[in-house]
Protein backbone atom coordinates (compact mmCIF):
# COMPACT_ATOMS: atom_id res chain seq x y z
CA UNK A 1 0.00 0.00 0.00
CA UNK A 2 2.77 2.41 -0.80
CA UNK A 3 1.22 5.47 -2.19
CA UNK A 4 3.62 6.67 -4.76
CA UNK A 5 3.92 10.23 -3.77
CA UNK A 6 6.90 10.81 -5.93
CA UNK A 7 5.80 8.95 -8.96
CA UNK A 8 7.04 10.70 -12.04
CA UNK A 9 7.13 14.23 -10.87
CA UNK A 10 5.85 16.52 -13.49
CA UNK A 11 8.19 19.35 -13.18
CA UNK A 12 9.04 20.66 -16.59
CA UNK A 13 10.26 23.93 -15.26
CA UNK A 14 13.27 22.39 -13.62
CA UNK A 15 16.09 21.30 -15.74
CA UNK A 16 16.73 17.68 -15.04
CA UNK A 17 20.15 16.48 -14.13
CA UNK A 18 22.01 14.71 -16.82
CA UNK A 19 21.17 15.01 -20.46
CA UNK A 20 18.45 17.20 -21.65
CA UNK A 21 15.19 15.54 -22.28
CA UNK A 22 13.46 17.34 -25.03
CA UNK A 23 9.74 17.60 -24.79
CA UNK A 24 9.25 14.93 -22.16
CA UNK A 25 7.50 15.21 -18.92
CA UNK A 26 9.04 13.02 -16.31
CA UNK A 27 12.18 14.13 -14.59
CA UNK A 28 12.94 10.84 -12.94
CA UNK A 29 13.33 7.75 -15.02
CA UNK A 30 12.41 5.32 -12.31
CA UNK A 31 9.06 4.49 -10.86
CA UNK A 32 10.26 5.62 -7.45
CA UNK A 33 10.61 9.18 -8.55
CA UNK A 34 12.97 11.24 -6.54
CA UNK A 35 13.75 8.33 -4.27
CA UNK A 36 15.03 6.36 -7.20
CA UNK A 37 18.01 6.72 -9.44
CA UNK A 38 19.25 9.67 -11.35
CA UNK A 39 19.40 9.41 -15.08
CA UNK A 40 23.05 8.55 -15.36
CA UNK A 41 22.81 5.82 -12.83
CA UNK A 42 19.67 4.58 -14.50
CA UNK A 43 21.54 3.90 -17.71
CA UNK A 44 24.00 1.74 -15.85
CA UNK A 45 21.33 -0.14 -13.97
CA UNK A 46 19.10 -0.63 -16.99
CA UNK A 47 22.00 -2.01 -18.96
CA UNK A 48 23.05 -4.27 -16.12
CA UNK A 49 19.57 -5.67 -15.61
CA UNK A 50 19.18 -6.23 -19.33
CA UNK A 51 22.40 -8.17 -19.55
CA UNK A 52 21.81 -10.20 -16.43
CA UNK A 53 18.41 -11.21 -17.68
CA UNK A 54 19.99 -13.37 -20.31
CA UNK A 55 20.92 -15.85 -17.61
CA UNK A 56 17.44 -17.37 -17.85
CA UNK A 57 15.96 -14.57 -15.77
CA UNK A 58 12.87 -13.17 -17.53
CA UNK A 59 11.56 -12.04 -14.16
CA UNK A 60 14.53 -9.70 -13.96
CA UNK A 61 13.53 -8.25 -17.32
CA UNK A 62 10.01 -7.76 -16.02
CA UNK A 63 11.32 -6.01 -12.92
CA UNK A 64 13.48 -3.88 -15.18
CA UNK A 65 10.44 -2.79 -17.17
CA UNK A 66 8.50 -2.09 -14.01
CA UNK A 67 11.31 -0.11 -12.50
CA UNK A 68 11.75 2.09 -15.54
CA UNK A 69 8.09 2.34 -16.32
CA UNK A 70 8.18 6.12 -16.99
CA UNK A 71 10.75 5.40 -19.67
CA UNK A 72 8.43 2.97 -21.39
CA UNK A 73 5.37 5.08 -21.11
CA UNK A 74 6.74 8.26 -22.58
CA UNK A 75 8.16 7.14 -25.83
CA UNK A 76 10.41 10.07 -26.47
CA UNK A 77 12.03 10.43 -23.10
CA UNK A 78 15.36 9.20 -21.86
CA UNK A 79 16.84 8.11 -25.17
CA UNK A 80 19.75 6.39 -23.53
CA UNK A 81 17.74 4.18 -21.24
CA UNK A 82 14.91 3.35 -23.55
CA UNK A 83 16.57 0.75 -25.80
CA UNK A 84 17.47 -1.45 -22.86
CA UNK A 85 14.05 -1.26 -21.31
CA UNK A 86 12.28 -1.94 -24.57
CA UNK A 87 14.48 -4.93 -25.29
CA UNK A 88 13.87 -6.20 -21.77
CA UNK A 89 10.13 -5.95 -22.34
CA UNK A 90 10.40 -7.82 -25.62
CA UNK A 91 12.57 -10.49 -24.04
CA UNK A 92 10.19 -10.95 -21.17
CA UNK A 93 7.20 -11.25 -23.50
CA UNK A 94 8.91 -13.81 -25.69
CA UNK A 95 10.17 -15.89 -22.79
CA UNK A 96 6.82 -15.82 -21.04
CA UNK A 97 5.03 -16.84 -24.21
CA UNK A 98 7.34 -19.80 -24.66
CA UNK A 99 7.25 -20.89 -21.05
CA UNK A 100 3.52 -20.54 -20.63
CA UNK A 101 2.80 -22.37 -23.83
CA UNK A 102 4.95 -25.24 -22.62
CA UNK A 103 3.37 -25.16 -19.16
CA UNK A 104 -0.17 -25.07 -20.47
CA UNK A 105 0.51 -27.82 -22.96
CA UNK A 106 1.87 -29.88 -20.14
CA UNK A 107 -0.95 -29.16 -17.75
CA UNK A 108 -3.82 -29.49 -20.17
CA UNK A 109 -2.37 -32.19 -22.34
CA UNK A 110 -1.68 -34.45 -19.47
CA UNK A 111 -1.15 -38.08 -19.84
CA UNK A 112 -2.86 -38.69 -23.13
CA UNK A 113 -0.60 -36.28 -24.90
CA UNK A 114 2.68 -37.20 -23.35
CA UNK A 115 2.27 -40.72 -22.30
CA UNK A 116 4.30 -42.09 -19.42
CA UNK A 117 6.74 -39.18 -19.61
CA UNK A 118 4.10 -37.01 -17.98
CA UNK A 119 4.34 -38.93 -14.78
CA UNK A 120 8.06 -38.52 -14.71
CA UNK A 121 7.91 -34.79 -15.21
CA UNK A 122 5.01 -33.64 -13.13
CA UNK A 123 6.02 -32.00 -9.93
CA UNK A 124 4.00 -33.64 -7.24
CA UNK A 125 4.86 -37.12 -8.32
CA UNK A 126 8.48 -36.12 -8.58
CA UNK A 127 8.31 -34.68 -5.11
CA UNK A 128 6.96 -37.91 -3.78
CA UNK A 129 9.62 -39.90 -5.53
CA UNK A 130 12.47 -37.79 -4.26
CA UNK A 131 10.77 -37.35 -0.91
CA UNK A 132 11.21 -33.63 -0.99
CA UNK A 133 8.41 -33.05 1.40
CA UNK A 134 9.76 -34.94 4.34
CA UNK A 135 11.03 -32.21 6.52
CA UNK A 136 14.19 -33.81 7.69
Amino acid at each position, binding site marked *: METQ*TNNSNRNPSRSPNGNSITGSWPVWPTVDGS*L*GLSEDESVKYARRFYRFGFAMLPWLWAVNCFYFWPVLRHSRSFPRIRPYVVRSAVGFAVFTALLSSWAFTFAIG*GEHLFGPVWDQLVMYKLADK*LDLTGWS
Partner: protein
Amino acid sequence: MAPNARPRSILESLGEEIIRIITPVSLCMLLVVILVSVLNTDSSSSYSASATSIATIAYSESSSDSSWDKFLGALLNSLVFVTVVTAVTFLLVLLFYFRCTKFLKYYMGFSSFVVLGFMGGEIAVFLIEKYSIPIDCITFLVVLFNFAVVGVLAVFMTKIAIIVTQGYLVLIGMLVAYWFTLLPEWTTWVLLVAMALYDLAAVLLPVGPLRLLVELAISRDEDIPALVYEARPVNCNDSGSTGGVPQRRVWRDKRGEDSVNGSNHNSNGNSVSGENVNPGSNSTLNATAVPDSDSDSNSVVIGHTDTSLVRAEEGRAPERDAELSTPLIGGRMNIPPHQPEDDAASESLMLEGIGLGSSGAIKLGLGDFIFYSVLVGRAAMYDFMTVYACYLAIIAGLGVTLMLLALYQKALPALPVSIALGVLFYLLTRLLLEVFVVQCSLNLLMF
Protein backbone atom coordinates in the same frame (compact mmCIF):
# COMPACT_ATOMS: atom_id res chain seq x y z
CA MET B 1 0.90 14.97 -8.35
CA ALA B 2 1.99 18.51 -7.91
CA PRO B 3 4.88 18.74 -5.55
CA ASN B 4 4.32 20.33 -2.22
CA ALA B 5 0.94 21.71 -3.10
CA ARG B 6 -0.22 22.29 0.41
CA PRO B 7 1.30 21.86 3.82
CA ARG B 8 0.41 18.50 5.19
CA SER B 9 -0.94 18.32 8.65
CA ILE B 10 0.85 16.31 11.22
CA LEU B 11 -2.04 13.93 11.32
CA GLU B 12 -1.64 13.07 7.67
CA SER B 13 2.08 12.62 7.78
CA LEU B 14 2.04 10.79 11.09
CA GLY B 15 -0.82 8.57 10.08
CA GLU B 16 0.79 7.83 6.76
CA GLU B 17 4.07 6.84 8.35
CA ILE B 18 2.38 4.52 10.77
CA ILE B 19 0.27 2.96 8.04
CA ARG B 20 3.34 2.38 5.95
CA ILE B 21 4.91 0.28 8.63
CA ILE B 22 1.81 -1.48 9.84
CA THR B 23 0.73 -2.61 6.38
CA PRO B 24 3.69 -4.87 5.64
CA VAL B 25 3.62 -6.28 9.16
CA SER B 26 -0.06 -7.12 8.76
CA LEU B 27 0.55 -8.52 5.31
CA CYS B 28 3.29 -10.81 6.56
CA MET B 29 1.12 -12.00 9.41
CA LEU B 30 -1.79 -12.60 7.06
CA LEU B 31 0.35 -14.66 4.70
CA VAL B 32 1.70 -16.78 7.52
CA VAL B 33 -1.79 -17.35 8.89
CA ILE B 34 -2.99 -18.43 5.46
CA LEU B 35 -0.06 -20.78 5.00
CA VAL B 36 -0.49 -22.24 8.44
CA SER B 37 -4.20 -22.82 8.06
CA VAL B 38 -3.76 -24.34 4.61
CA LEU B 39 -0.77 -26.53 5.23
CA ASN B 40 -0.92 -27.50 8.85
CA THR B 41 -4.42 -28.72 9.22
CA ASP B 42 -3.82 -32.35 8.68
CA SER B 43 -0.52 -33.40 10.06
CA SER B 44 0.70 -30.78 12.45
CA SER B 45 1.68 -33.17 15.16
CA SER B 46 3.67 -35.47 12.96
CA TYR B 47 5.54 -32.65 11.32
CA SER B 48 6.42 -30.94 14.51
CA ALA B 49 7.79 -34.10 15.95
CA SER B 50 10.14 -34.55 13.07
CA ALA B 51 11.37 -31.00 12.79
CA THR B 52 14.84 -30.75 14.15
CA SER B 53 16.61 -27.54 14.36
CA ILE B 54 18.77 -25.60 16.64
CA ALA B 55 15.74 -24.67 18.65
CA THR B 56 14.85 -28.22 19.48
CA ILE B 57 18.31 -29.47 20.12
CA ALA B 58 17.91 -29.88 23.82
CA TYR B 59 14.53 -31.40 23.96
CA SER B 60 12.00 -32.63 21.48
CA GLU B 61 8.51 -32.41 22.64
CA SER B 62 6.25 -35.34 22.42
CA SER B 63 2.63 -35.28 23.31
CA SER B 64 2.95 -37.82 26.03
CA ASP B 65 5.02 -35.66 28.36
CA SER B 66 3.49 -33.86 31.24
CA SER B 67 3.06 -30.12 31.13
CA TRP B 68 5.86 -29.49 33.54
CA ASP B 69 8.23 -31.62 31.49
CA LYS B 70 7.25 -29.82 28.36
CA PHE B 71 7.76 -26.48 30.01
CA LEU B 72 11.19 -27.43 31.27
CA GLY B 73 12.15 -28.81 27.92
CA ALA B 74 10.96 -25.69 26.18
CA LEU B 75 12.92 -23.56 28.62
CA LEU B 76 16.04 -25.55 27.88
CA ASN B 77 15.53 -25.22 24.15
CA SER B 78 15.03 -21.48 24.39
CA LEU B 79 18.10 -21.08 26.54
CA VAL B 80 20.18 -22.88 23.96
CA PHE B 81 18.70 -20.81 21.19
CA VAL B 82 19.25 -17.49 22.89
CA THR B 83 22.80 -18.46 23.70
CA VAL B 84 23.42 -19.31 20.09
CA VAL B 85 21.90 -16.02 19.01
CA THR B 86 24.03 -14.05 21.43
CA ALA B 87 27.16 -15.84 20.30
CA VAL B 88 26.39 -15.20 16.68
CA THR B 89 25.69 -11.56 17.30
CA PHE B 90 28.97 -11.13 19.10
CA LEU B 91 30.64 -12.85 16.20
CA LEU B 92 28.95 -10.39 13.93
CA VAL B 93 30.23 -7.50 16.00
CA LEU B 94 33.70 -8.97 15.79
CA LEU B 95 33.55 -9.39 12.06
CA PHE B 96 32.27 -5.90 11.66
CA TYR B 97 35.09 -4.69 13.84
CA PHE B 98 37.58 -6.33 11.54
CA ARG B 99 35.87 -4.85 8.52
CA CYS B 100 35.02 -8.10 6.76
CA THR B 101 32.11 -6.42 5.12
CA LYS B 102 32.43 -7.89 1.66
CA PHE B 103 32.60 -11.43 2.93
CA LEU B 104 29.62 -10.90 5.14
CA LYS B 105 27.65 -9.31 2.37
CA TYR B 106 28.18 -12.18 -0.01
CA TYR B 107 27.49 -14.73 2.62
CA MET B 108 24.27 -13.01 3.50
CA GLY B 109 23.27 -12.91 -0.12
CA PHE B 110 23.95 -16.60 -0.34
CA SER B 111 21.86 -17.33 2.71
CA SER B 112 18.98 -15.28 1.35
CA PHE B 113 19.20 -17.29 -1.79
CA VAL B 114 18.89 -20.44 0.26
CA VAL B 115 15.93 -19.09 2.19
CA LEU B 116 14.11 -17.97 -0.90
CA GLY B 117 15.11 -20.87 -3.05
CA PHE B 118 15.02 -23.88 -0.81
CA MET B 119 12.54 -22.89 1.82
CA GLY B 120 10.34 -21.19 -0.70
CA GLY B 121 10.66 -24.17 -2.96
CA GLU B 122 9.78 -26.57 -0.22
CA ILE B 123 6.68 -24.64 0.74
CA ALA B 124 5.73 -24.42 -2.93
CA VAL B 125 6.10 -28.19 -3.21
CA PHE B 126 3.81 -28.59 -0.22
CA LEU B 127 1.21 -26.43 -1.87
CA ILE B 128 1.56 -28.24 -5.17
CA GLU B 129 1.12 -31.54 -3.48
CA LYS B 130 -1.85 -30.42 -1.48
CA TYR B 131 -3.71 -29.05 -4.47
CA SER B 132 -2.29 -31.44 -7.08
CA ILE B 133 -1.34 -28.65 -9.42
CA PRO B 134 -0.16 -30.22 -12.68
CA ILE B 135 3.00 -28.21 -13.02
CA ASP B 136 6.05 -29.85 -14.44
CA CYS B 137 9.44 -29.70 -12.87
CA ILE B 138 11.09 -27.66 -15.62
CA THR B 139 8.67 -24.79 -15.31
CA PHE B 140 8.80 -25.04 -11.55
CA LEU B 141 12.57 -24.89 -11.46
CA VAL B 142 12.75 -21.96 -13.85
CA VAL B 143 10.19 -20.00 -11.89
CA LEU B 144 11.82 -20.79 -8.56
CA PHE B 145 15.26 -19.89 -9.86
CA ASN B 146 13.99 -16.57 -11.16
CA PHE B 147 12.21 -15.82 -7.95
CA ALA B 148 15.21 -16.58 -5.78
CA VAL B 149 17.83 -14.81 -7.86
CA VAL B 150 15.82 -11.65 -8.33
CA GLY B 151 15.04 -11.72 -4.62
CA VAL B 152 18.69 -11.82 -3.71
CA LEU B 153 19.44 -9.01 -6.14
CA ALA B 154 16.57 -6.93 -4.87
CA VAL B 155 17.38 -7.27 -1.22
CA PHE B 156 21.13 -7.12 -1.24
CA MET B 157 22.96 -6.48 -4.37
CA THR B 158 21.54 -3.66 -6.34
CA LYS B 159 19.20 -0.82 -6.12
CA ILE B 160 15.83 -1.75 -7.41
CA ALA B 161 12.24 -0.58 -7.18
CA ILE B 162 11.36 0.05 -3.56
CA ILE B 163 8.18 -1.96 -3.70
CA VAL B 164 10.01 -4.98 -5.10
CA THR B 165 12.52 -4.86 -2.26
CA GLN B 166 9.81 -4.44 0.31
CA GLY B 167 7.81 -7.29 -1.21
CA TYR B 168 10.77 -9.62 -1.10
CA LEU B 169 11.56 -8.69 2.49
CA VAL B 170 8.00 -9.50 3.49
CA LEU B 171 8.28 -12.82 1.64
CA ILE B 172 11.52 -13.73 3.35
CA GLY B 173 9.94 -12.90 6.68
CA MET B 174 6.95 -15.03 5.84
CA LEU B 175 9.05 -18.02 4.81
CA VAL B 176 11.21 -17.99 7.90
CA ALA B 177 8.21 -17.41 10.17
CA TYR B 178 6.43 -20.38 8.64
CA TRP B 179 9.40 -22.57 9.40
CA PHE B 180 9.36 -21.41 12.97
CA THR B 181 5.76 -22.38 13.39
CA LEU B 182 6.75 -25.95 12.78
CA LEU B 183 8.47 -26.10 16.12
CA PRO B 184 6.65 -27.77 18.98
CA GLU B 185 4.15 -25.64 20.77
CA TRP B 186 5.67 -25.07 24.16
CA THR B 187 9.05 -24.44 22.62
CA THR B 188 7.59 -21.79 20.36
CA TRP B 189 5.97 -19.83 23.13
CA VAL B 190 8.88 -19.94 25.51
CA LEU B 191 11.18 -19.09 22.63
CA LEU B 192 9.15 -16.01 21.80
CA VAL B 193 9.31 -14.77 25.36
CA ALA B 194 13.02 -15.53 25.53
CA MET B 195 13.68 -13.65 22.30
CA ALA B 196 11.73 -10.66 23.56
CA LEU B 197 13.85 -10.57 26.71
CA TYR B 198 17.02 -11.01 24.70
CA ASP B 199 15.99 -8.17 22.42
CA LEU B 200 15.41 -5.92 25.39
CA ALA B 201 18.81 -6.77 26.81
CA ALA B 202 20.76 -6.59 23.59
CA VAL B 203 19.54 -3.19 22.55
CA LEU B 204 19.31 -1.36 25.83
CA LEU B 205 22.10 -2.73 27.97
CA PRO B 206 25.49 -1.09 27.45
CA VAL B 207 27.13 -4.45 26.86
CA GLY B 208 24.44 -5.61 24.52
CA PRO B 209 25.91 -6.78 21.22
CA LEU B 210 23.54 -4.76 19.13
CA ARG B 211 24.28 -1.61 20.97
CA LEU B 212 27.96 -2.27 20.47
CA LEU B 213 27.36 -2.86 16.81
CA VAL B 214 25.59 0.39 16.30
CA GLU B 215 28.08 2.38 18.30
CA LEU B 216 30.81 0.86 16.18
CA ALA B 217 28.94 1.83 13.06
CA ILE B 218 28.40 5.34 14.29
CA SER B 219 31.97 5.84 15.35
CA ARG B 220 33.23 4.55 12.06
CA ASP B 221 30.63 6.29 10.05
CA GLU B 222 29.78 3.12 8.21
CA ASP B 223 26.72 1.17 7.43
CA ILE B 224 25.76 -2.04 9.02
CA PRO B 225 24.11 -3.95 6.28
CA ALA B 226 21.24 -6.13 7.27
CA LEU B 227 17.76 -7.24 6.53
CA VAL B 228 15.68 -4.32 7.59
CA TYR B 229 12.42 -3.18 6.20
CA GLU B 230 12.38 0.51 5.47
CA ALA B 231 9.10 2.19 4.88
CA ARG B 232 8.83 4.62 2.06
CA PRO B 233 9.44 8.08 3.50
CA VAL B 234 6.63 10.54 3.62
CA ASN B 235 8.00 13.58 1.95
CA CYS B 236 6.62 16.70 3.41
CA ASN B 237 8.87 18.77 1.33
CA ASP B 238 9.34 17.56 -2.13
CA SER B 239 12.77 17.37 -3.55
CA GLY B 240 11.82 19.70 -6.33
CA SER B 241 11.61 22.62 -4.03
CA THR B 242 14.95 22.03 -2.43
CA GLY B 243 17.08 21.75 -5.45
CA GLY B 244 17.00 18.04 -5.78
CA VAL B 245 18.59 17.13 -2.50
CA PRO B 246 16.36 14.90 -0.48
CA GLN B 247 16.27 16.18 3.02
CA ARG B 248 17.00 13.63 5.60
CA ARG B 249 15.90 13.30 9.10
CA VAL B 250 18.69 12.02 11.17
CA TRP B 251 19.77 11.26 14.59
CA ARG B 252 21.31 14.41 15.95
CA ASP B 253 23.27 14.89 19.11
CA LYS B 254 21.28 16.05 22.07
CA ARG B 255 23.75 18.72 22.85
CA GLY B 256 22.94 20.40 19.64
CA GLU B 257 26.11 19.61 17.78
CA ASP B 258 25.90 17.78 14.57
CA SER B 259 29.03 15.83 15.07
CA VAL B 260 28.90 12.13 15.36
CA ASN B 261 29.56 11.01 18.83
CA GLY B 262 30.69 7.49 19.11
CA SER B 263 30.10 6.83 22.73
CA ASN B 264 26.46 7.57 23.00
CA HIS B 265 23.55 7.44 20.71
CA ASN B 266 22.60 10.47 18.85
CA SER B 267 19.15 11.61 19.48
CA ASN B 268 16.93 12.86 16.85
CA GLY B 269 14.87 15.69 15.73
CA ASN B 270 11.32 14.57 15.84
CA SER B 271 10.70 11.75 13.50
CA VAL B 272 7.35 12.93 12.36
CA SER B 273 7.90 16.60 11.97
CA GLY B 274 9.84 16.40 8.77
CA GLU B 275 12.59 18.68 9.83
CA ASN B 276 15.33 19.37 7.48
CA VAL B 277 18.72 18.29 8.45
CA ASN B 278 22.12 19.73 8.36
CA PRO B 279 23.91 17.80 5.66
CA GLY B 280 26.85 17.25 7.88
CA SER B 281 25.17 14.81 10.16
CA ASN B 282 24.69 11.19 9.66
CA SER B 283 21.72 9.13 10.31
CA THR B 284 21.76 5.71 11.65
CA LEU B 285 19.46 3.05 12.64
CA ASN B 286 19.97 0.62 15.32
CA ALA B 287 18.31 -2.65 15.58
CA THR B 288 18.76 -5.82 17.45
CA ALA B 289 20.07 -8.81 15.67
CA VAL B 290 18.25 -12.00 16.15
CA PRO B 291 18.99 -15.21 14.52
CA ASP B 292 16.12 -17.33 13.68
CA SER B 293 16.60 -20.92 13.25
CA ASP B 294 15.62 -22.82 10.28
CA SER B 295 13.93 -25.88 11.44
CA ASP B 296 15.70 -29.01 10.50
CA SER B 297 18.35 -27.47 8.48
CA ASN B 298 21.69 -27.88 9.96
CA SER B 299 21.79 -24.47 11.39
CA VAL B 300 24.03 -22.19 9.52
CA VAL B 301 23.27 -18.90 11.07
CA ILE B 302 23.60 -15.88 9.01
CA GLY B 303 23.58 -12.48 10.49
CA HIS B 304 21.97 -9.64 8.73
CA THR B 305 22.11 -6.21 9.98
CA ASP B 306 21.22 -3.20 8.08
CA THR B 307 21.80 0.35 8.79
CA SER B 308 22.04 2.96 6.22
CA LEU B 309 24.22 5.68 7.35
CA VAL B 310 23.64 8.30 4.84
CA ARG B 311 25.99 10.90 3.80
CA ALA B 312 23.84 13.65 2.58
CA GLU B 313 25.17 13.95 -0.89
CA GLU B 314 23.69 16.17 -3.44
CA GLY B 315 20.85 14.66 -5.27
CA ARG B 316 21.61 11.13 -4.33
CA ALA B 317 18.94 8.96 -2.94
CA PRO B 318 20.13 7.01 0.03
CA GLU B 319 22.00 4.01 -1.13
CA ARG B 320 21.52 0.91 0.79
CA ASP B 321 24.87 -0.56 1.26
CA ALA B 322 26.39 -3.93 1.56
CA GLU B 323 24.87 -6.21 4.03
CA LEU B 324 26.62 -8.23 6.62
CA SER B 325 26.01 -11.73 7.50
CA THR B 326 27.59 -14.11 9.89
CA PRO B 327 27.55 -17.80 9.48
CA LEU B 328 27.38 -20.04 12.43
CA ILE B 329 27.53 -23.73 12.03
CA GLY B 330 26.10 -25.68 14.84
CA GLY B 331 23.20 -27.72 15.92
CA ARG B 332 22.17 -31.12 14.95
CA MET B 333 23.27 -32.78 11.77
CA ASN B 334 20.26 -34.98 11.45
CA ILE B 335 19.70 -34.37 7.84
CA PRO B 336 19.34 -37.21 5.42
CA PRO B 337 21.65 -36.74 2.49
CA HIS B 338 19.07 -36.36 -0.19
CA GLN B 339 17.87 -33.04 0.99
CA PRO B 340 20.37 -30.54 -0.23
CA GLU B 341 18.45 -27.55 0.96
CA ASP B 342 18.99 -28.52 4.54
CA ASP B 343 22.70 -28.66 4.18
CA ALA B 344 23.03 -25.24 2.85
CA ALA B 345 22.06 -22.51 5.08
CA SER B 346 19.72 -20.67 6.98
CA GLU B 347 19.63 -19.69 10.38
CA SER B 348 19.51 -16.10 9.62
CA LEU B 349 20.42 -13.40 11.93
CA MET B 350 17.87 -10.86 11.26
CA LEU B 351 17.77 -7.56 12.89
CA GLU B 352 15.01 -6.60 15.12
CA GLY B 353 14.25 -3.33 16.54
CA ILE B 354 12.83 -0.14 15.30
CA GLY B 355 14.45 3.11 14.47
CA LEU B 356 14.75 5.78 11.89
CA GLY B 357 16.17 5.33 8.50
CA SER B 358 18.34 7.68 6.62
CA SER B 359 15.51 9.41 4.89
CA GLY B 360 13.55 9.62 8.08
CA ALA B 361 11.36 6.70 7.25
CA ILE B 362 10.66 4.18 9.93
CA LYS B 363 12.79 1.08 9.79
CA LEU B 364 11.75 -2.18 11.32
CA GLY B 365 14.06 -5.13 11.49
CA LEU B 366 13.06 -8.29 9.70
CA GLY B 367 13.36 -10.30 12.89
CA ASP B 368 10.41 -8.37 14.25
CA PHE B 369 8.33 -9.33 11.23
CA ILE B 370 9.31 -12.92 11.75
CA PHE B 371 8.54 -13.19 15.43
CA TYR B 372 5.27 -11.33 15.16
CA SER B 373 4.24 -13.69 12.38
CA VAL B 374 5.37 -16.70 14.38
CA LEU B 375 3.16 -15.61 17.26
CA VAL B 376 0.17 -15.11 15.03
CA GLY B 377 0.86 -18.31 13.13
CA ARG B 378 1.01 -20.27 16.33
CA ALA B 379 -2.23 -18.65 17.42
CA ALA B 380 -3.72 -19.71 14.09
CA MET B 381 -2.88 -23.28 14.86
CA TYR B 382 -5.32 -23.13 17.69
CA ASP B 383 -8.21 -21.13 16.40
CA PHE B 384 -9.00 -17.95 14.52
CA MET B 385 -10.27 -16.24 17.62
CA THR B 386 -6.78 -16.23 19.05
CA VAL B 387 -5.50 -14.91 15.74
CA TYR B 388 -7.68 -11.83 15.94
CA ALA B 389 -6.81 -11.20 19.56
CA CYS B 390 -3.08 -11.63 18.99
CA TYR B 391 -3.12 -9.50 15.86
CA LEU B 392 -4.72 -6.62 17.71
CA ALA B 393 -2.33 -7.04 20.59
CA ILE B 394 0.70 -6.98 18.31
CA ILE B 395 -0.47 -3.92 16.43
CA ALA B 396 -1.16 -2.16 19.69
CA GLY B 397 2.32 -3.10 20.89
CA LEU B 398 3.80 -1.79 17.67
CA GLY B 399 1.95 1.47 18.14
CA VAL B 400 3.28 1.78 21.67
CA THR B 401 6.78 1.10 20.41
CA LEU B 402 6.44 3.78 17.76
CA MET B 403 5.31 6.22 20.38
CA LEU B 404 8.28 5.35 22.52
CA LEU B 405 10.48 5.78 19.49
CA ALA B 406 9.20 9.29 18.99
CA LEU B 407 9.60 9.96 22.68
CA TYR B 408 13.08 8.61 23.32
CA GLN B 409 14.46 9.21 19.86
CA LYS B 410 16.84 6.37 19.70
CA ALA B 411 16.72 2.85 18.47
CA LEU B 412 14.45 0.62 20.45
CA PRO B 413 13.71 -3.07 20.56
CA ALA B 414 10.39 -3.68 18.89
CA LEU B 415 9.77 -7.14 20.25
CA PRO B 416 9.16 -6.86 23.99
CA VAL B 417 5.96 -4.86 24.13
CA SER B 418 4.26 -6.64 21.24
CA ILE B 419 5.28 -10.12 22.28
CA ALA B 420 4.23 -9.48 25.88
CA LEU B 421 0.83 -8.24 24.82
CA GLY B 422 0.49 -10.98 22.24
CA VAL B 423 1.28 -13.80 24.63
CA LEU B 424 -0.95 -12.30 27.29
CA PHE B 425 -3.85 -11.96 24.90
CA TYR B 426 -3.33 -15.46 23.56
CA LEU B 427 -3.51 -16.93 27.04
CA LEU B 428 -6.49 -14.84 28.01
CA THR B 429 -8.36 -15.68 24.84
CA ARG B 430 -7.59 -19.35 24.97
CA LEU B 431 -8.36 -19.80 28.62
CA LEU B 432 -11.14 -17.36 29.25
CA LEU B 433 -12.64 -15.79 26.17
CA GLU B 434 -13.12 -18.96 24.20
CA VAL B 435 -15.13 -20.64 26.88
CA PHE B 436 -17.33 -17.62 27.14
CA VAL B 437 -17.90 -17.29 23.41
CA VAL B 438 -18.55 -20.97 22.91
CA GLN B 439 -21.07 -21.08 25.68
CA CYS B 440 -22.82 -18.02 24.34
CA SER B 441 -23.01 -19.52 20.89
CA LEU B 442 -24.20 -22.86 22.12
CA ASN B 443 -26.98 -21.23 24.02
CA LEU B 444 -27.76 -19.04 21.02
CA LEU B 445 -27.17 -15.95 23.04
CA MET B 446 -24.71 -14.21 20.75
CA PHE B 447 -22.83 -14.68 17.50
